[in-house]
């Protein structure tokens, strides 16, 4: 093992060794970290390599070539290494003396003594140009052999030679671009494997596997990029064999990189049709985790190929090769500024027959995973028209569902429940959902109803971009009506939401005159619908939305009360809807009830455009509702436990009811600080703390959503007490997270203990809140399954003691 020298005292020789070690090992790892570090798998990969640091150091020191190349004391300045000598000495090879690479040698050997061309470069530049790895420097014979193969094309079949001809070796070797790619992304040798057959390239493949071993998958990407299929398979086999990966693991490992493996793009890149900038964008956009939140979002779930020609005209659109086209926006304003430009792109795309054809073939492999497109409202008609024109089976299906009216009415028909849910099979419903989701509506790439609504709400804050026909997005969500109840009320998962949430009643306390005028203007429509025997609702958008040059209202016919229920809930969650004109008295009552139940207020107008629901009436109804049950009555009711009795707790074989009952039993007995009232509240918190399991949002959000619904059924609670209960439910999770994050080991350092304590204290604004939340937390911990309870409780008690909380 090499001796360790503190940096200030290490001899020059050792310093140089460390420099080489850094160049060969640390720097590539850092690069890998910057690319992969956002994923768990990526971090693991980097750590696996880092774990082998001593072996790598040993290997570098033991490498004769290395010591030959950098004999101690021959250079005063470490950056003054004569690289030509180094290369020549590596394995006694002479790669850069070949005619082919001469130019390249000139370019990369600026410090060669006596060589006046090119001019001297700054030391840092020279370091930057160093090859990443000395382990796979190409063999001169190999290069020559490759040149011959490429020149004669004798070893390639016709199809392959067509590709290869686009990139003769001499051309590509003389290309600075190529050199740069090779040097920056991997090894020179490995890139040449595209020319090899599996048998002939056996050594090369081994070398790639070796590169993989030392530097991780990233370093072999160029090889993969250029490899012909048989070679690629051979590499894959070899790596799987050597590294004992299953094919699935291998694919997962290379998932990000397989996007490069399309020969067309690779060749385009290599011959300069795709420049580095675009390629880098392409890479970055497609590496999971590197996109900033909000930096999405137009995503087409289609094969990329037909789009490329169209999209290549637009330099800032990236095309992923597996299934997405992503237009990225820095933020909402960015989109609004550029919406016309993107509309043009969409227009171009839908004008393209290839794309239309592709759309026709499109089958989403992701099932329910809805992908949607942001389209400026002005372009809806354009899109609609394109869809009608397209003569394909897929679009034909869509077309058959569209009449010659405007798109809005078409959509309205499509979202009619009868058509969707009574049309027979589940498949029909899913199909329709997919058709609509894929083509028409906005930006939400969601994994479920609640997720979509959550994103929608975030979009309103500009975190995600949803604008334009965003109400259509709500409609598309409503179509998944079965899910609707699970997502409301929406509660953002931060402690700060609490006062805001509970104080957000009503949404608007005064009726803007514009809204009244609007309601009166449109009242005749309500009357018309009534006379024609149809139920109807006119939705009035919130005034703040009207400034965005969007519709001020929307007419919805044929909705039953259930639909209105969902519509209202979603409208409230997003604060997008200001009110409704409703032509049926029954439905007005239904709406009122919903608003009271959910503690949100919106204006309702009758068929004559007159306000029918005042804030005073709302408040009165709300107060009545709050007298439904006292805390004591609610606790005695135990219907919640009955409801939970069959649900799994997540702790062994316990049901949620068993767990909840145990937590309730524990409350108030653990800490003595709580007074009787607080104990009662704590019991309430215990009863409500885990009821939302499995609703589809995060666990915390689920729990909070359900708890807040139950709380609205309880009278006699002050706002502060409600907040206390909700925040304790939230913090039950948070305390655990913070303790486990910094303090999972009871032997943790004093510093970690202090850090943990501070981070927990940050959650609370008062001692009372803290104690309350700690009570719940400890009661919860103590209430987990019988088999685990002893140890866990002991550990948690010890930790809380060490933290100074008990």
């Amino acid at each position, binding site marked *: 093992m*090499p001796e360790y020298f503190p940096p200030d005292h290490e001899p020059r020789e050792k310093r140089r060794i460390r420099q080489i070690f850094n160049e060969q090992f640390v720097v590539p790892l850092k690069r890998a970290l910057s690319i992969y570090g956002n994923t768990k798998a990526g971090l693991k990969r980097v750590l696996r390599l880092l774990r082998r640091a*001593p072996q790598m150091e040993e290997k570098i020191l033991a490498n004769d070539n290395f010591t030959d190349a950098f004999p101690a004391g021959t250079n005063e300045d470490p950056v003054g290494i004569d690289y030509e000598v180094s290369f020549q000495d590596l394995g006694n090879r002479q790669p850069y003396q070949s005619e082919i690479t001469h130019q390249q040698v000139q370019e990369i050997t600026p410090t060669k003594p006596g060589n006046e061309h090119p001019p001297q470069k700054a030391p840092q530049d020279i370091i930057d140009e160093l090859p990443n790895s000395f382990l796979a420097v190409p063999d001169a014979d190999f290069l020559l052999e490759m040149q011959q193969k490429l020149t004669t094309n004798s070893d390639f079949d016709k199809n392959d030679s067509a590709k290869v001809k686009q990139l003769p070796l001499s051309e590509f070797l003389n290309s600075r671009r190529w050199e740069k790619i090779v040097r920056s992304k991997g090894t020179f040798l490995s890139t040449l494997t595209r020319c090899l057959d599996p048998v002939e390239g056996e050594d090369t493949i081994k070398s790639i596997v070796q590169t993989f071993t030392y530097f991780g998958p990233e370093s072999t990407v160029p090889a993969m990029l250029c490899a012909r299929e048989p070679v690629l398979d051979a590499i894959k086999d070899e790596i799987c064999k050597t590294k004992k990966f299953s094919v699935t693991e291998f694919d997962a490992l290379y998932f990000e990189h397989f996007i490069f493996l399309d020969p067309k793009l690779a060749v385009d890149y290599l011959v300069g049709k795709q420049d580095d900038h675009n390629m880098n964008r392409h890479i970055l956009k497609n590496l999971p985790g590197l996109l900033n939140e909000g930096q999405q979002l137009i995503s087409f779930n289609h094969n990329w190929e037909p789009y490329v020609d169209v999209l290549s005209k637009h330099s800032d659109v990236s095309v992923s090769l597996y299934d997405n086209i992503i237009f990225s926006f820095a933020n909402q304003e960015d989109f609004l500024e550029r919406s016309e430009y993107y509309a043009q792109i969409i227009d171009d795309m839908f004008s393209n027959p290839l794309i239309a054809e592709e759309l026709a073939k499109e089958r989403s492999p992701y099932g329910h995973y809805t992908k949607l497109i942001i389209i400026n409202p002005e372009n809806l008609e354009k899109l609609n028209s394109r869809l009608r024109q397209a003569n394909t089976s897929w679009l034909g299906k869509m077309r058959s569902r569209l009449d010659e009216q405007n798109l809005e009415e078409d959509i309205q028909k499509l979202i009619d429940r009868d058509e969707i849910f009574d049309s027979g099979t589940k498949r029909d419903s899913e199909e329709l959902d997919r058709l609509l989701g894929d083509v028409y509506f906005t930006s939400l790439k969601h994994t479920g109803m609640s997720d979509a609504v959550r994103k929608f709400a975030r979009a309103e804050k500009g975190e995600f971009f949803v604008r334009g026909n965003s109400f259509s997005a709500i409609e598309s969500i409503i179509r998944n009506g079965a899910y609707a109840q699970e997502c409301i009320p929406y509660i953002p998962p931060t402690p700060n939401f609490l006062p805001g949430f509970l104080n957000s009643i009503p949404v608007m306390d005064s009726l803007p005159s514009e809204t009244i005028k609007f309601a009166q203007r449109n009242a005749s429509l309500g009357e018309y619908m009534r006379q024609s025997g149809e139920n109807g609702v006119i939705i009035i958008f919130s005034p703040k939305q009207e400034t965005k040059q969007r519709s001020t209202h929307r007419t919805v016919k044929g909705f039953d009360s259930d639909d209105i229920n969902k519509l209202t809930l979603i409208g409230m969650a997003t604060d997008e809807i200001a009110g409704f004109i409703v032509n049926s008295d029954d439905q007005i009552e239904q709406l009122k009830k919903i608003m009271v139940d959910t503690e949100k207020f919106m204006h309702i107008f009758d068929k004559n455009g007159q306000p029918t629901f005042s804030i005073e009436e709302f408040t009165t109804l709300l107060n009545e509702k709050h007298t439904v049950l006292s805390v004591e009555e609610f606790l005695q009711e135990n219907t919640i436990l009955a409801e939970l009795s069959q649900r799994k707790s997540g702790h062994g074989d316990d049901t949620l009811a068993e767990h909840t009952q145990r937590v309730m039993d524990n409350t108030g007995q653990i800490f003595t600080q709580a007074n009787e009232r607080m104990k009662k509240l704590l019991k309430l918190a215990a009863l409500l703390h*885990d009821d939302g399991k499995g609703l589809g949002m*995060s666990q915390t959000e689920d729990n909070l959503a359900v708890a807040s619904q139950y709380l609205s059924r309880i009278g006699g609670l002050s706002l502060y007490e409600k907040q206390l209960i909700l925040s304790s439910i939230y913090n039950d999770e948070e305390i655990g997270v913070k303790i486990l994050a910094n303090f999972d080991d009871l032997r943790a350092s004093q510093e970690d203990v202090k850090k943990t304590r501070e981070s927990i204290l940050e959650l609370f604004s008062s001692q009372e809140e803290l104690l309350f939340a700690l009570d719940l937390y400890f009661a919860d911990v103590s209430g*987990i399954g019988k088999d685990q309870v002893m140890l866990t409780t002991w550990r948690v008690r010890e930790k809380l003691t060490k933290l100074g909380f008990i």
Partner: protein
Amino acid sequence: MSDRNNFVFTLDEVRKKVVKILDDLEKGSISSEEASKLAQKLEKVIEEYEFAESGKGE
């Protein structure tokens, strides 16, 4: 409290630790052996806990 192991560390926190190890290794303020040990610890951390992936569900 259930499933809270899902939230133990964020990737960002682990990544920062790795960055620091690599920086230290590059500067020579820790040896490759020390770096290796730290890496093993972090590997264990990753093995033990599921991460709450940043942007979960996005």
